[in-house]
């Protein structure tokens, strides 16, 4: 593989996709999509949920076959029939969904399909495999043990493994489909420095993301898609974010959330005292008031998800007390939690949020089946469908019908279905774990508005988020965690990026800030 040894100023075209069409049953995912990538360029691909970004890249990766269209690689027309072929052509993709083998180790995952062999060709050489993985991590500045099983990693670390794997191919083209969705700012910064290195080497990089503020940091050009169509390609530095957004959604939206109203209520609806769980949680205490949005900030692995799962009864905890509306409660299962009025929207929608093989309305009804029963336990289809329709409208879920299986929805729309499920359960306390992960700007602002409305209606909301601007904008108060401890609780007025980061990195000591 020889790449022109030039910097990002090289204008030679590495990849061109033209007139790409692709349909799925009931959906025209792509119609006349176009894309161009140059050597040594970071090219952002943006669009609303379901715009067809992932589909276009899966065609490039040999996973889907296009109905019509043409792909040119370094000027040559190519047909890509299989993932293997794409690899051989120097195309490496980090998919939106994690694609790892949880039972295998990190090193085994990275080198799957091209294991270093020993002298006898059918024998594997695990030593070399691990060694090479370690070298790779050193290069990428990652703290990973190659022999750890992937199932023992958090989502964020799994994402890092995916990235490491993709980089290990030494590809000409690296496609990253929302690689940053599961990462915190520090990790994103590390990833970007790796990307910059690759750009220097002339690799063409496709970067799909809904975090538009990233575009300016990393990308050279940006292509906007809408409804499966190519809209425009802009020089990132020259294009204001608002222009990109309006191209994406085809209308003007208010990117910033409406002003957060002051929370008048002082009624504590949820109180957690001295929650301990193994090494993961240490003495976690906080309270949540009616009508309040309580942000949870922290670095990856700070234990925020653990807190949520413990409160929700999804995982057992060792000690601690939980009070709902002043009453001590013993929540032993998610069922108990729901009946106590606690809902939890998990951070990994595919694994924990959705019955992928079931349809939109069924998923929406899942957490509140009792509401959809007629006599003797029969399901009332009319009401189920009506509620599904309501949610599709309210959350603007892009789906051909209520009967579409959710596995066929785009990632962002799947997330909205999960939100719909918990709105339907209508619990007084809602824990949103990374609610806007993988969601486009339009939908994001809809969700912000929704959170506001819910708070306004008197619901109490915990919002776990790794996006600091979001936490700052959306929270009445912010709980900051580090290494399983609450290191600080900040009022909206005191919360800044700097103050949060200070507490988020306060390792090994407990300092209680003003509440």
């Amino acid at each position, binding site marked *: 593989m020889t790449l022109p040894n030039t910097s990002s100023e090289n204008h030679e075209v590495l990849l061109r996709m033209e007139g790409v069409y692709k349909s799925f049953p009931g959906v025209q995912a792509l119609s006349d999509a176009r894309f161009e990538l140059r050597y040594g360029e970071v090219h952002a691909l943006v669009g609303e949920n379901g715009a067809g970004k992932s589909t276009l890249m899966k065609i490039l990766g040999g996973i889907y076959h296009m109905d019509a269209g043409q792909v040119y690689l370094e000027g040559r027309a190519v047909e890509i029939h299989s993932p293997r072929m794409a690899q051989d052509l120097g195309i490496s993709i980090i998919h939106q969904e994690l694609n790892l083998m949880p039972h295998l180790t990190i090193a085994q995952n990275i080198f799957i399909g091209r294991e270093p062999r020993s002298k006898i060709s059918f024998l594997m050489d695990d030593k070399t495999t691990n060694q090479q993985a370690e070298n790779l991590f050193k290069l990428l500045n990652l703290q990973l043990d190659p022999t750890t099983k992937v199932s023992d990693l958090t989502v964020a670390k799994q994402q890092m493994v995916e990235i490491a794997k993709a980089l290990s191919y030494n590809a000409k083209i690296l496609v990253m489909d929302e690689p940053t969705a599961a990462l915190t700012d520090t990790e994103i910064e590390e990833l970007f420095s790796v990307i910059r290195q690759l750009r220097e080497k002339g690799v063409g990089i496709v970067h799909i993301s809904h975090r538009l503020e990233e575009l300016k940091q990393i990308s050279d050009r940006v292509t906007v898609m809408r409804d499966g169509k190519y809209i425009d390609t802009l020089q990132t530095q020259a294009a204001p974010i608002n222009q990109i957004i309006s191209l994406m959604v085809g209308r003007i939206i208010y990117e910033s959330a409406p002003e957060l109203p002051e929370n008048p209520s002082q009624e504590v609806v949820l109180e957690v005292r001295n929650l301990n769980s193994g090494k993961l949680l240490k003495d976690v205490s906080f309270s949540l008031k009616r009508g309040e949005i309580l942000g949870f900030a922290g670095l990856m692995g700070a234990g925020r998800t653990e807190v949520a799962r413990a409160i929700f009864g999804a995982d057992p905890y060792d000690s601690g007390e939980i009070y709902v509306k002043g009453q001590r409660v013993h929540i032993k299962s998610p069922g108990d939690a729901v009946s106590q009025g606690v809902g939890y929207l998990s951070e990994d929608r595919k694994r924990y949020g959705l019955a992928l093989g*079931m349809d939109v309305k069924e998923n929406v009804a899942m957490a509140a*089946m009792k509401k959809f029963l007629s006599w003797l336990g029969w399901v009332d289809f009319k009401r189920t469908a009506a509620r599904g329709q309501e949610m599709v409208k309210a959350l603007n879920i892009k789906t051909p019908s*209520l009967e579409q299986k959710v596995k066929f929805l785009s990632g962002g729309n799947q997330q909205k279905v999960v939100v719909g499920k918990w709105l339907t359960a209508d619990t007084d306390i809602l824990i949103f774990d990374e609610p806007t992960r993988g969601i486009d700007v339009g939908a994001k602002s809809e969700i912000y508005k929704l959170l506001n409305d819910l708070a306004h209606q008197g619901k109490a909301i915990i919002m776990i988020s790794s996006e600091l601007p979001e936490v700052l904008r959306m929270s009445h108060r912010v709980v900051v965690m580090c290494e399983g401890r609450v290191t600080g609780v900040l009022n909206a007025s005191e919360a800044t990026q700097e103050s949060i980061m200070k507490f988020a990195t306060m390792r090994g000591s407990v300092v209680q800030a003003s509440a």
Partner: protein
Amino acid sequence: MKSETKTAQTLFRSDAMQRLMAFSALIVLSIGFSVASPYFRTFDNFVGILLATAVNGVLALGVTFVIITAGIDLSVGTVLTFSAVLTGVFITNWHLPIPLGILGGVLAGSLAGFVNGTLISRMKIPPFIATLGMLYATKGLSLVISELKPIYFNDTPAFREMAMGSILGKIIPGFEVPNAVFILFGAAIIANFILTRTVLGRYTFALGSNEEATRLSGVNVAAWKTAVYTLCGFFAGIGGVLMASRLNSAQPALGAGYELDAIAAVVIGGTSLSGGEGSILGTIIGAFIISTLTNGLRILSVPQEWQMVVTGGIVILAVFLDILRRRR
């Protein structure tokens, strides 16, 4: 109006197509055999096929639920025997009234199912092992309880009438279709209702689709899973009573290997072993494919060893055609 369209859609989504496919396989088989043998296409033989489907069909109904949850039940065959033996004990040995005896037998089956469900959902034993254990246990218990002897229903001719009499024949003389056939269809309708219209059915699919997500939706997964296995045992119980009525006796040594036929019916009917999808109509058609095939080959006097070879081939073919269709 809108919801009607939706119901129609629900019925005729891809699943429906798939059943259609299995259905065409059934039709093709039937036509083939009808052309090949005049004896195949008689009314009596048709009734014979219906009757031969009854026991396996009822078993397969319950298995459908279990398989949709991505589970498996290997014990249905021996649980069937267990129910039959207990029905015999209740009616013949204890002289209980027939309805009570039947109820007792069906409850025994449900109880076995409940134990399966508890082992699986609360003690987290993999379904394959829990029900394999139950297979051995009920096989042994049937022999123990019956003292290794068949139990006859000679004192209670009404019991035999239950499955083998023909209410239809009394209404329309000449159409002597045994009640067992209607019991099968009745059970299928109930099963279909439970699967498509009740919460249990909804959770059956949800469990098979994503058990963890179902749990995190606040659903009491253990309880519902137990319910599914109990239901499977319930249908096995009905199968046992049917079998006892048909044979006018409870045969304690019967039932080994029945589970494979039941599972085959379910899978041929388009229910996926990886869970999350399936239908009762498909299962019934699957059961008919198996019994039509068996009957047709017998009618043609194909040597039994070749019957096996052909059955194997056709089972694979039926599923392959279905897969081809789905891939399109």
